[in-house]
């Protein structure tokens, strides 16, 4: 008996889980792009002439090395998120890079060729200000770290502390920089804003104060923002108010010299004996010029002009990093990395050749959508026939014939190309995707990924190759934005172009703007969105369409007035007719209020239900509805005894997650409310005691899966709720929230999960026939595809004949992570923040995009590829067998005829 169960279990496991990638399929259907984020510090590795490395430390707490020839990553280290992993300073000497991490908490040294850690030490507490390398007679042996009140010196070889000293007058003087000129002295530079600069010189040997001077500088308020120490102790500051350069020799002078100039951005670099300043100044609206100035004299160097063309879809330049080198004729040559407002890095060589660009905005994707690609011209021609008005029988026939001819022509051309390509070696056949030749493939597996990033830059990425096809920078993004991307018109309505609308809301004021664009080309639509003078509370896409097939977007403002976009007469008329059946809900988590509204014919609203959760006890953490494009194929589940258990498929159901305000481990809880969004009826209310967030929820079909932290057992747990109507349906033809008086049956089961999770999403397919999987992004960078059948509250404790008939897996409290369930094999996705799933034209296939610091795209087949022939399918064999059978029948028929004839003669 037990053996039988075991066998049955094995069968189920094997059936459901063999889905790993074959070795030769690696990179065939998937791609990954790695990013580093907005660059904070950058250093060119110049200790070897032939070196092609640039070190970058970013605001996303990433330390990486880039190849200057191609812009690709050599190596990358991803630290903790938040202030703990914040990189405060980056210094480089020879093969070592020294980082100060976590507001002066840690000092680390890295080997830059392979990215290995040399050493790490913990620094004394105190707010970090600045750090610098300290050398003596061309050998650098120490690192100086300046904090709010202290300065300390460490050995470069092992990080040990040499001496630590207090700073004088640290209450009034704001020490911001530290410098050493290689003569046995360490200078700490402090500023009293709008008054003077204080300079304290320490002895390198024992940390004794050698001298203290102060220099008048009433225009200066922040050394770090506008000054830099160059060359042999020359402090150079930029005053942006008067657009001039100030210079101060730290050893000799006590007066600053002023050099006026015209500039936007300045960066300094030293090569050999010479120190240069690269200055970027605006040329015209679309271009900037960069010039080199000598560090000693302030004079412009000849033949160093470099033109940088601004991307019309990009931002303004923000930072400049210069790599200067000596040419053979002893003149100074240079390369620059320009960082723009949209976090793009552009590497430029003289005389203005762009070597590479990196779109670092993609390290912070906020939301995304996948849009079908348009049909090809010929297909569109055929489609267009149906859209137009009929103009007579004869012309229609002619039109049909002509379009069929065009199709035939295209097919022959395609065959010819196939034949032609087949003769060429595979490596030469390259299908470059450009925006012009974009078209839908046979199974709609290639789509346009529209990604919205936190910096306000929009991207259109081809899902097959990952190449960026268009980009658009929105430069009026508020500082604390929330984005919502909606597809108003898909590509299905030729000749109307597809249309996406991005709602950009300022979280502080609630004011919103709309950006309407074409998701295939990225161009801003000529349709002007309505001005939104009031703060927006809620937006919803209705299934209603206007005469141009654009779905109607409703926006609810803080006066509870509704405005529609597009708001043509046709739309308003439809809205008036439908008003009594348009309901929406609002959630005010600060007051714990969930309220439902109904639309009136005059586009005002009325409050119809209200549920109030007391905020003293708990707070609303998240609300999840179902995805509107989700299809459920089967209405019920067939039980072991051949009866049917019907699912409760309420499209208006909301899963509301509550977390207790009391975080004590005995009293904390996580609550789940299932509320009907139309009637406000609480369908189910469950509470998980001794549990804590963060809670991740997936809500789909008739189930809700959530994950939480159990404070009692100190582990992550999964719980699944399934809703069933029972053995008979109340109204099988249509679901109405207003007419479902019976509460559904609720089943729930929980499991132990051996890892914490970052994000969770369910697979989605065209018709919903394929079984569902949960895609779980783990903090380790893996993406796990967990079959939903393991999260089934009907898994029996004790196996019976009926449960076996139903293919239910016997209950086991722990969900195992099987390595073959990882869909991204070794392609780690750092800091997964979201997973997006989209159906493809094939029922078996679901497209998956995971985004975080990296972007990873792949396909998953939750029920295996039941509708696709394998790659290695033997066409020759099957066709030869068919042919052989055909001839065999022909011959045997002939033989039978002869035989019959002979028999008749006899």
């Amino acid at each position: 008996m037990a053996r039988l169960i075991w066998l049955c279990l094995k069968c189920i496991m094997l059936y459901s889980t063999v889905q790993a990638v074959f070795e030769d399929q690696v990179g065939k259907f998937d791609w990954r792009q790695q990013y580093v984020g907005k660059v904070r510090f950058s250093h060119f590795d110049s200790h070897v002439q032939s070196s092609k490395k640039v070190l970058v430390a970013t605001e996303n707490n990433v330390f990486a090395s880039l190849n200057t020839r191609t812009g690709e990553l050599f190596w990358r280290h991803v630290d903790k998120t938040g202030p703990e992993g914040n990189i405060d300073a980056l210094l480089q000497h020879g093969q070592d890079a020294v980082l100060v991490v976590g507001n002066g908490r840690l000092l680390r040294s890295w080997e830059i060729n392979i990215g290995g850690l040399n050493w790490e030490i913990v620094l004394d507490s105190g707010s970090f200000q600045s750090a610098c390398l300290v050398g003596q007679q061309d050998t650098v042996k120490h690192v100086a770290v300046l904090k709010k009140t202290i300065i300390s010196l460490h050995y470069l070889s092992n990080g040990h502390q040499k001496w630590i000293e207090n700073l004088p007058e640290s209450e009034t003087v704001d020490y911001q920089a530290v410098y050493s000129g290689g003569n046995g002295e360490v200078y700490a530079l402090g500023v009293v804003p709008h008054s003077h600069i204080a300079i304290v010189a320490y002895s390198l040997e024992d940390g004794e104060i050698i001298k203290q001077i102060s220099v008048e500088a009433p225009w200066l308020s922040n050394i770090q923002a506008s000054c830099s120490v160059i060359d042999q102790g020359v402090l150079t500051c930029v005053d942006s108010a008067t657009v001039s350069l100030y210079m101060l020799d730290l050893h000799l002078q006590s007066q600053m010299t002023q050099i006026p100039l015209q500039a936007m951005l300045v960066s300094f670099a030293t090569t050999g004996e010479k120190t240069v300043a690269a200055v970027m100044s605006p040329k015209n609206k679309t271009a900037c010029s960069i010039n080199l100035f000598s560090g000693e004299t302030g004079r412009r160097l000849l033949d160093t002009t470099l033109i940088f063309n601004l991307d019309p879809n990009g931002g303004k330049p923000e930072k400049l990093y210069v790599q200067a080198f000596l040419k053979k004729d002893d003149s100074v040559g240079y390369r620059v990395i320009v960082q723009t407002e949209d976090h793009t890095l552009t590497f430029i060589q003289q005389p203005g050749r762009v070597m590479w660009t990196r779109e670092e905005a993609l390290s912070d994707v906020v939301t995304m959508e996948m849009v079908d690609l348009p049909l090809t011209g010929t297909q569109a021609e055929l489609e267009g026939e149906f859209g137009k008005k009929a103009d007579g029988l004869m012309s229609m026939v002619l039109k049909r014939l002509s379009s069929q001819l065009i199709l035939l022509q295209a097919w022959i051309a395609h065959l010819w190309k196939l034949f032609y390509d087949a003769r060429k070696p595979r490596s030469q056949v390259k299908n470059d995707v450009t925006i012009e030749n974009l078209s839908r493939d046979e199974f709609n597996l290639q789509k346009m990924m529209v990604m919205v990033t936190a910096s306000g830059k929009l991207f259109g990425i081809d899902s097959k190759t990952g190449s960026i096809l268009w980009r658009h920078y929105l430069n009026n993004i508020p500082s604390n934005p929330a984005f919502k991307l909606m597809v108003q018109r898909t590509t299905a309505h030729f000749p109307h172009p597809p249309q996406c609308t991005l709602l950009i809301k300022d979280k502080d004021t609630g004011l919103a703007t709309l950006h309407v664009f074409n998701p295939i080309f990225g161009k801003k639509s000529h349709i002007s969105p309505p001005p939104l003078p009031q703060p927006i509370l809620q937006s919803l896409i209705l299934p209603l369409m206007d005469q141009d097939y654009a779905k109607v977007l409703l926006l609810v403002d803080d006066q509870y007035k509704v405005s529609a976009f597009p708001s043509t007469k046709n739309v308003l008329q439809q809205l008036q007719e439908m008003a009594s059946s348009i309901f929406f809900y609002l959630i005010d988590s600060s007051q714990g209020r969930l309220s439902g509204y109904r639309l009136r014919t005059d586009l005002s609203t009325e409050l119809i239900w209200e549920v109030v959760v007391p905020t003293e006890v708990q707070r609303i953490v998240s609300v999840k509805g179902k995805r509107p494009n989700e299809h459920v194929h089967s209405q019920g589940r067939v039980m072991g005894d051949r009866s049917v258990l019907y699912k409760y498929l309420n499209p208006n159901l909301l899963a509301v997650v509550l977390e207790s305000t009391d975080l004590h481990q005995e009293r904390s809880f996580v609550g789940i409310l299932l509320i009907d969004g139309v009637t406000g009826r609480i369908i189910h209310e469950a509470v998980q005691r001794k549990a804590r967030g963060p809670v991740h929820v997936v809500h789909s079909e008739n189930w809700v899966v959530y994950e939480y932290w159990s404070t009692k057992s100190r582990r992550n747990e999964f719980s699944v709720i399934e809703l069933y109507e029972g053995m008979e349906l109340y109204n099988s033809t249509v679901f109405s929230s207003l007419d479902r008086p019976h509460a559904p049956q609720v089943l729930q089961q929980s499991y132990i999960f051996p890892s914490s999770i970052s994000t969770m999403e369910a697979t989605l397919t065209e018709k919903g026939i394929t079984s569902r999987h949960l895609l779980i992004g783990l903090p380790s960078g893996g993406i796990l595809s967990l079959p939903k059948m393991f999260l089934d509250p009907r898994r029996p404790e004790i196996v019976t004949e009926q449960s076996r008939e139903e293919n239910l897996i016997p209950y086991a409290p722990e969900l195992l992570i099987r390595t073959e369930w990882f869909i991204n094999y070794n392609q780690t996705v750092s800091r997964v923040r979201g997973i997006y799933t989209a159906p493809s034209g094939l029922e078996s296939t679901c497209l998956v995009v995971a985004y975080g610091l990296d972007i990873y795209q792949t396909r998953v087949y939750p029920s295996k590829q039941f509708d696709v022939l394998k790659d290695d399918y033997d066409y020759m064999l099957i066709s030869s067998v068919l042919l052989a059978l055909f001839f065999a029948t022909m011959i045997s028929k002939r033989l039978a005829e002869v035989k019959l004839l002979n028999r008749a003669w006899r």
Partner: protein
Amino acid sequence: MARPLPFKIAVVSSVLFIVCTNFVCCNNGRKVGDVMDTEFSGFSVPLEHSFEVDDVAKFRVRGALVLKAGREPSVSLTQSQLSEEDRTKLKDVAAVDGLYRVRVPRVFLQADRQTERQMEGYLTAFVRACAMVESHLSDVISLHTDVSGYLIGVSIVTLPGACRGTEVEDEVDLEVFNTTLSIMAPVNAPGPETALFLERMEMESEKKGKNPQEQKSFFAKYWYLILGGAIFLMVTNSAQPPAGGGREQS
């Protein structure tokens, strides 16, 4: 001997008397009839309803909900009949597909004092007026509380729930509410069932232990396979020289 007994009786009765008077005093201390509020009979809050032809909510009292706090909160409802005027109005509202709304004030069930119980605001729910009429005023009202005993939501459905447009001829059908009432606290969600699973595993291993077939040693179980393998090996070994000879010949 006879004397102490009456004495004792007197003492006991006097004690009883004092207790009784005290008890009566207690009763007198209460404001009887002011609010239906005692420790054991719960407290009452109004259940209000509204149905207007122009759909602007005007709530009037429909009845009184008597809520009983405690480990298992319960609720009961006393409500009056619909007046002649209300009946026609309800039918009118149903004719224009208006809403029948109900509301209850937000209350905290576990508080001891009346002032602490009442909170600001109401909880509202609705049902289509036609459904109310066609179901002959048979509705199901449920009140939902949260973990700590705050009332968080109210829901109303009618049985049957559909609006089929059937005319309700008899006015008497719309006189009396036929209400099913319930109060629901959140269900405790189950945690992972480790104990039962372990028990089951143990039972299975015990069963295995009892089964003598399973207890046999490796050799005892598979002796025939090992023997067969050994014979096979021997046969192949002895058969090799002739095979080699064969190759030489060819």
